[in-house]
């Protein structure tokens, strides 16, 4: 006869919180949470006490006060009577301008250098290695300040363009003036302009929408739509008959034709910079600070991008291209359909994180006096108002939003090209 007994009922003992792995993790988490909240409470409490002693409790009211300083490089209209928040907006736009310009140039230079480093020409590969190592191993701040110093010290003064026998002349058929106060380039003008729409009236975040630009975007959108239709039709014909109709001239016409017509309709012409008095007037004025920052950031980041591109191409085994040619693919199609899709999967994530680095490094603009968000909100506004906590918090929030949105894009891309495995 067997006696069946239940196993002894497990009762909860306090020591199990430490020794039983089932409960220990909960204990650790509760302690961690508690410690974190304690730390946060301590910091916040200290901050409140200190700020009250200093007589400046947290408030963001200062943002609507008059800024009182000028921003010399800006995209929207602004004067020193505008508020701090508008100055910060100008700064943010300037950050985005230099980031976008920098990313484009860095990509072009980086891809070129990365491909050239793999060249079977020994000399070219070595030159590119020297470029990469030089730029990677020296701080970017040094490059920025050096670029600024070179621009200021070596370029001619606007005065040098003056007189009957000027010591300096304008470049590119008298259209671009390179001076030590910045570069003046032609600006697009429309003699029959459609005008601007003022949005948000008189508020701090007001801006104008140029109807000319809108018209161009609409036309360009329609052109691209038409081009896709033509390509789709060509694909359908190819599927049916095996012959692909020639489409390149139609596509070219669709891309440029409507835009050209619109340009003529709106009376497009270029406004050239001209020397008036001691300075150039007209055209778009790109300050030295912008050019130095743009140049230094893009050359520095290009060195990193070159390494990424090189690694990406090396990561694709030669078997892939051999297999493609065994299937009878031409080399251009091999590149487009076999090599690039695989290489891009390796290249793009680190590339985007380098764009992110470039954007964050653009905060070094403060060293050359380019008025980006760090120069306005984290520079003059902070010094004028003495609101360090609020300004730094806003500054961090702005950069966090930029970074998180870029990494959001990166994650979306990563998921969309992820190899689907079993």
């Amino acid at each position: 006869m067997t006696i069946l007994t239940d196993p002894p009922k497990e009762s909860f003992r306090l020591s199990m919180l430490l020794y039983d792995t089932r409960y220990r993790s909960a204990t650790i988490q509760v302690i961690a949470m508690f410690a974190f909240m304690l730390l946060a409470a301590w910091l916040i409490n200290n901050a409140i006490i200190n700020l009250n002693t200093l007589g400046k409790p947290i408030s963001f009211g200062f943002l609507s006060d008059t800024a009182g300083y000028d921003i010399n490089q800006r995209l929207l209209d602004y004067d020193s009577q505008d508020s701090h928040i508008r100055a910060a907006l100008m700064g943010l736009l300037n950050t985005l301008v230099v980031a976008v310009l920098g990313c484009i140039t860095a990509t072009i230079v980086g891809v070129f250098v990365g491909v050239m480093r793999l060249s079977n020409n020994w000399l070219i590969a070595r030159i590119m290695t020297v470029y990469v190592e030089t730029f990677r191993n020296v701080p970017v701040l040094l490059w920025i300040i050096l670029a600024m110093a070179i621009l200021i010290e070596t370029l001619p003064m606007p005065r040098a363009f003056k007189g009957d026998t000027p010591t300096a002349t304008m470049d590119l058929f008298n259209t671009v003036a390179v001076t030590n106060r910045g570069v003046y380039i032609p600006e697009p003008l429309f003699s029959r302009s459609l005008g601007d729409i003022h949005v948000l009236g008189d508020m701090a975040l007001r801006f104008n929408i140029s109807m000319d630009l809108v018209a161009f975007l609409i036309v360009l959108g329609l052109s691209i739509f038409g081009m896709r239709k033509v390509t789709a039709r060509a694909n359908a014909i190819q599927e049916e008959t095996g012959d692909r109709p020639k489409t390149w001239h139609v596509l070219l016409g669709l891309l440029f034709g409507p835009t050209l017509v619109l340009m003529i309709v709106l009376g497009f012409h270029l406004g050239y910079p001209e020397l008036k008095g001691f300075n150039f007037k007209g055209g778009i004025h790109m300050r030295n600070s912008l050019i130095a920052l743009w140049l230094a950031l893009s050359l520095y980041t290009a060195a990193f991008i070159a390494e990424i591109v090189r690694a990406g191409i090396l990561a694709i085994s030669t078997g892939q291209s051999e297999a493609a040619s065994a299937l009878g693919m031409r080399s251009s199609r091999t590149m487009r359909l076999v090599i690039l899709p695989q290489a891009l999967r390796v290249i793009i994530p680190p590339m985007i994180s380098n764009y992110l680095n470039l954007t964050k490094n653009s905060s070094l603009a403060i060293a050359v006096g380019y008025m980006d968000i760090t120069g306005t909100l984290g520079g003059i506004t902070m010094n004028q108002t003495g609101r360090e906590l609020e300004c730094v918090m806003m500054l961090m929030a702005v950069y966090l939003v930029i970074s998180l949105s870029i990494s959001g894009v990166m994650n979306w891309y990563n998921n969309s090209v992820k190899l689907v495995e079993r």
Partner: protein
Amino acid sequence: MSDVSFVRTEMLPEQAPPGSEVGVIGWLRHNLFSSWINGILTVLSLYAIYYVLAGILPWVFLSVWNAGSLTECREIMNATWGGTHGHACWGVINERWLQLLFGFYPSYLYGRPILALVLLLLALTPILFNMISRRMNWFLLALAFFVTAMLMDASIFVWILRIGFAAATLFIGYQLVTLSGSDRAEQIAQGAKRLPNPLMFTAVYPFLMPWLMWGGTIWPPICAALGFVIGFVVLRFGKDHMSELVTMIAAVAAAVIWWLVLSGYVSDGLSSVLPIGIEAVESRKFGGFMIAILLGVVAIGASLPIGVVLALGRQSDLVIVKALCVGFIEFIRGVPLITLLFVASLLLNIFMPPGTNFDIILRVMIMMTLFSAAYMAEVIRGGLAALPRGQYEGADSLGLDYWQAQRLIIMPQALKVSIPGIVSTFIGIFKDTTLVSIIGLFDVIGLASAIRADTSWNGIYWELFAFIAFLFFIVCFSMSRYSMYLERKLQTGHR
């Protein structure tokens, strides 16, 4: 039947490859002139190289070394070469290089940062190069201390040090010369006592370095080190009486109580009773390249362990711990370093209890460490993710607990995989130390701006920036080469 055969019966002798395929000509054909496009590119790049070198070499070597100002420099250039263009004025470096290296550190104390740097290298040797023997390590250390003692002002105490270190140097040096490495290995195999591990000195170094740099009495660093000793003692002797986990907690608690509550009083008391020490140097006198090395070394040294912990936290199953780690890492990685340095210079005091006011360099160090730790965590997480699941499962099936598995199985492999990333983070941090010039510390770049604003050197920039770039290039380039060497050394063959 005839014996005519149409098949050759003996092999032809091997012929030498055509002259155009081997030797210098072959190499040139393959690497420089393999096609006409390549030929054009080669010629173009040769021209580019000539153009650059023709600009740089005369600039560097046909230059003025002794001049007190830029105008004087230009006068000398005009007198010598009949023009100022294309000649460097190294006079500025000649006059200011000590300042660029040490900032405003008192010049009669330059020996201290230099000693700190030499000792840093000696403390790192056992970690970086495992082929250097213990005897060699201790010999170099004893030699360094002996030289230091010889350079100090003579007193009875210094004479005792000199004799002691001389004896140690001679003793180890004599053994090193007379006893070859293999003989020594045999002795050890037969049970001879080994020299203590030189990593002991590496452990002491973090306490020695701040004392050498900032000076003051010897008690604060000793008291800081005592915290670790106390924790260790509790861990060692508590094990017999308490369970392992409780001992661990008790050890940490004892050390923390010592640091937060007791050590301040003890070190103050000892400092007033026994004021043994060296001249104190204030933080605002720190500057130049020294600051880059100081910040770089501290941030690099501290960020690796913190980064490992953060990476493990991010990979962990504990939801709250994971959320805290992810939040920290993403926050730090999302903002530029310059905003964190603003926090260090303007805001950190606001978050501390009223009345605390701690050193600006220390505040910057904390922020740089946190910054690099977040990046390090991501690099190590990449290494952890690269490990196959089987490694974790293998560790589990052997019955290893979490920390044993991490220490013995996971981390060694993950760290090895992430060496390139870790070293490039190190290089990035080292370069980022220049940002402190923006918050008003006089590092090399801050000093260069000050020199350029000086009336006698107004208008000079290439020479200064070339010198600074050279300093950084040397350090960063050697770091990247070392990482390649390490990768090759740790390569286990199957990738």
